[in-house]
Every structure is written in structure tokens, then in C-alpha cells.
């Protein structure tokens, strides 16, 4: 992959926003699924949200990004809601060419019309997709689609980027490309919050870890501490490879 250059419109010049979860719960069709959950997202990240399947990692991310509203409690950004983007496990691609997907995002973002083409082309190049610019996005491979989803997030120059299991369906080469992209976002000051169930991936990327099990947040600790001396018994068992409920 090409080396990622910082965007000029970048986030690092903006004051860092902090995210506050206060007694947040979520339920669906009468079933309690998450919380109550309280924490304040701090530091520069990347923050990795870890835990077994069904722990509520994706829910936490969707609540943070505002795709879901909490049943009770509050999700708050201070001092104000930052520009943010999200990359999903299954990338959602419009039925248009790769570059048209980026231009659409730029149009939604109210980028002046004459800059869109150039920004989109630059992003495609950064993510090694230039030769696929005119290809319909939905016939790209899984790895290419995920890179395109990252390029779409890139053109939005988000201050916060959420990624929900972005590599779970990819092969090792594609996983490497996604992880490099995550670090590139991080380098240019985007606050990265990402879920994974891959402990090795978390070790490679994490500055701190939110560990969840069974809809509860069990701990929020720096990565070095989490991988050596986790606070919760749930995390200790998870890291030992035991099955955690």
C-alpha cells in the first residue's frame, strides 16, 4: 500500500473531544442487551473494544457513533460532537463505481463540487485502488471493498473513526492493509475506536482496551496493563483462552 499522507483539512488541529457514557443501557424488544455502562473515553488511542461474541462490542460502538439511542443513561461528547465516520464489518457499498462512492460521501459532506474528483482520486491512490476507480464497487473483492470503505472514511477527514470488526472476513494480506490504514488514521490525529475478537490484532494496535463480556464493561485499561495484568477475572480468563460467557 502507498504511504498515507496527512490531509490538510485535518483533525489534529482541532481540540480532542471526549466521549462520556453515563449509565448507558440498551435493550431490544424487551430484552436487556447492554449495560449499565459508564466510562469516559480518554487518551489518543487506538482503543480496542475486546470481548467474546455477543459481549455487546458492536452495540457499544453503535451507541457511541449515534446509530442507536440508549434505552436509558446518556452518551455525550464534550466539548461537542466531533466529525466522525464508521467502517462496518460488511462494507456497505452503493451500486456505483468505486470513485462514485467516494464522490457521494464528499457530496454528503458538502465538499465543494470542483474539489470532489481530486480528493476522491487522491484517496483511491492512497489505498491502492486507483486502477479500480471505475469498477462497480460491489463487484470488488472483500478486501478491496473494505479498503474502499476506509478510503471513504478518509475523505471525510473524521476526528473519530469507529471500526466494527473490519477484518473478520478478510485474508491476512487484506488484514495487513486494513491495520496499516488504521495506524495511518491514528498518525494523522484521528481517534480510532475499533472492535475485534482477535487478541493478536489487539496486541498489535491497541493503546488501551475496553473489555466487555455479557453486555457489561468489565475494564478499561491501558494495553500494556491489560495484556499483562488485567483487572477483571473475565479478561484474565479470556486472555488465557478460556470460554467466557
Amino acid at each position, binding site marked *: 500500500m502507498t504511504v498515507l499522507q496527512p490531509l490538510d483539512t485535518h483533525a489534529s488541529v482541532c481540540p480532542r473531544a471526549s466521549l462520556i457514557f453515563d449509565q448507558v443501557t440498551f435493550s431490544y424488544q424487551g430484552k436487556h442487551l447492554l449495560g449499565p455502562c459508564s466510562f469516559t473515553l480518554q487518551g489518543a488511542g487506538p482503543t480496542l473494544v475486546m470481548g467474546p461474541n455477543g459481549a455487546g462490542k458492536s452495540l457499544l460502538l453503535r451507541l457511541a457513533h449515534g446509530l442507536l439511542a440508549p434505552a436509558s443513561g446518556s452518551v455525550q461528547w464534550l466539548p461537542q460532537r466531533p466529525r466522525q*465516520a464508521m467502517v462496518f464489518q460488511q462494507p456497505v457499498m452503493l451500486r456505483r463505481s468505486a470513485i462514485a462512492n467516494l464522490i457521494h*460521501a464528499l457530496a*454528503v459532506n458538502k465538499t465543494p463540487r470542483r474539489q470532489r474528483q481530486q480528493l476522491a482520486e487522491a484517496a483511491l491512490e492512497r489505498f491502492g485502488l486507483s486502477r479500480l476507480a471505475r469498477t*462497480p464497487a*460491489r*463487484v470488488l473483492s472483500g478486501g478491496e471493498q473494505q479498503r474502499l470503505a476506509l478510503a471513504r472514511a478518509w475523505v471525510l477527514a473524521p476526528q473519530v473513526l469507529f471500526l466494527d470488526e473490519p477484518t473478520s472476513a478478510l485474508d491476512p494480506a487484506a488484514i495487513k492493509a486494513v491495520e496499516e490504514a488504521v495506524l495511518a488514521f491514528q498518525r494523522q490525529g484521528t481517534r480510532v475506536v475499533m472492535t475485534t475478537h482477535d487478541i493478536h490484532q489487539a496486541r498489535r494496535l491497541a493503546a488501551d482496551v475496553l473489555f466487555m463480556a455479557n453486555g457489561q464493561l468489565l475494564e478499561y485499561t491501558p494495553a500494556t496493563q491489560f495484556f499483562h495484568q488485567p483487572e477483571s477475572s473475565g479478561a484474565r480468563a479470556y486472555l488465557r483462552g478460556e470460554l467466557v460467557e
Partner: protein
Amino acid sequence: MAADSNALSVALSLLINLDAALVDIVLLSLQVSLLAVCLAALIGFPLGAAVALWRFPGRGLVVVALNALMGLPPVVAGLVVYLLLSRAGPLGEWGLLFTPNAMVIAQVVLVLPILAALSRQKVEELLAEYQEQFVSLGMSRLRMIQTLLWDARFALLTVLLAGFGRASAEVGAVMMVGGNIDGVTRVMTTSIVLETSKGNLPLALGLGIVLLTLVLVINAAAYLVGEWARRRTG
């Protein structure tokens, strides 16, 4: 039997020689139905997308009404438009009754529910897939409608062809509001009815062949568009 096969050969010669009366009728049919379908699409597609997108009280009723109106009997549509446009009706002043414009209105009434109901379905399927991405991008409803309609373009083209098929093959409504006036409001379907009852089978058969061909071409086009879209957009 001999008379019938004779009628068929005369019908074919009318077609081959592009008989003036026949061509006029075919052209008027196409003009009326194409205009009706275009107008219906301008209203029906955004309406379908809006119903797919918004959750409001009574939405279920709107969906059921649109679906039910897809089967609206043409003569009922004709009657309603007739009552609206007749001299004593609320729109009587416009003087539209027994003009091609009245036939366009009647066909819009027939086709609009088809376009709105089917596009609502297609857009709703697409929205289920796109919704989280849309919310994540912070899109306005208007932008969502634009995006959904464009991304459903191949499906909507098929819907459009279905609407055109219904409009061009329908006889009851245009007969009532058009009056089947020679050279003014006589279209393929109404001519076939009239010419058959007069015993002028060659013209009726000739028009029947054109109509049948048109329907075949429309369906072939719909099929090809669907196949091409599947291969192209995955």
C-alpha cells in the same frame, strides 16, 4: 376461416406499407402512454421512496392503499376522471374531456399506484441494506431519497416498463375519457374494439400485432436490463 386468413394478409400488408391511419393510431398511443408514464414516474418514484423512508401514523394504510390501487379497474379510473373532467365536474372548465390530455390523466391515475407501490418495495429493500451507512454519513432525508432512487435505477426501469405495459394495453379508461374520436383520441386498444365490432378485421389485427410486439419488446427489455444490472453491479 378464409376470411380470417385473408384479414391477416391484409393486416400484414397494412403493416408493411405503413398505412397512414394505422401509423397515426400507433403514434398517438405511444405519445399518450409515454407521457402518462413519465408524469406518473415524476410523482410516483419520489412518493414511493418517501413512503419507504418515513415512519408516520397511518403509514400502513398508505402502503395498503397503494398496493390495492395497483389493481384499480381501468373503467373505475375512467369513471373518476370522467366525473372530474365533465362539464359539470370540478375540473370541467379546463375543457379536457375527449382530448388526448384526458387520456393521459386517466393513464396517470392507473399507472401512478403501480410505480409508487413497486418503487416503495424496491427502495425499502435497499434502505435496509444502506440505513446504517446513511445515518453514519449524517445524510438528510432528501439526500437519502436521491441516493436510493439512483441506486435502485435498474429495478425502477423494470417498474417503469411494467407501468408502460399497463398504460398501453389498457382500453376502458381511455375509451371513456377520450371518446375514441377518429384522428383525435383513437388509440390502438380502442381502435381494436371499434374495428372488430365494425367487422374491419385487417386494421384490428394489424393493431393487435403492433400491440403484442410492443408488449414483447417491453418484456424483453425488462429482462435484459435486469440481467445486465445483475452482472454489472453484483
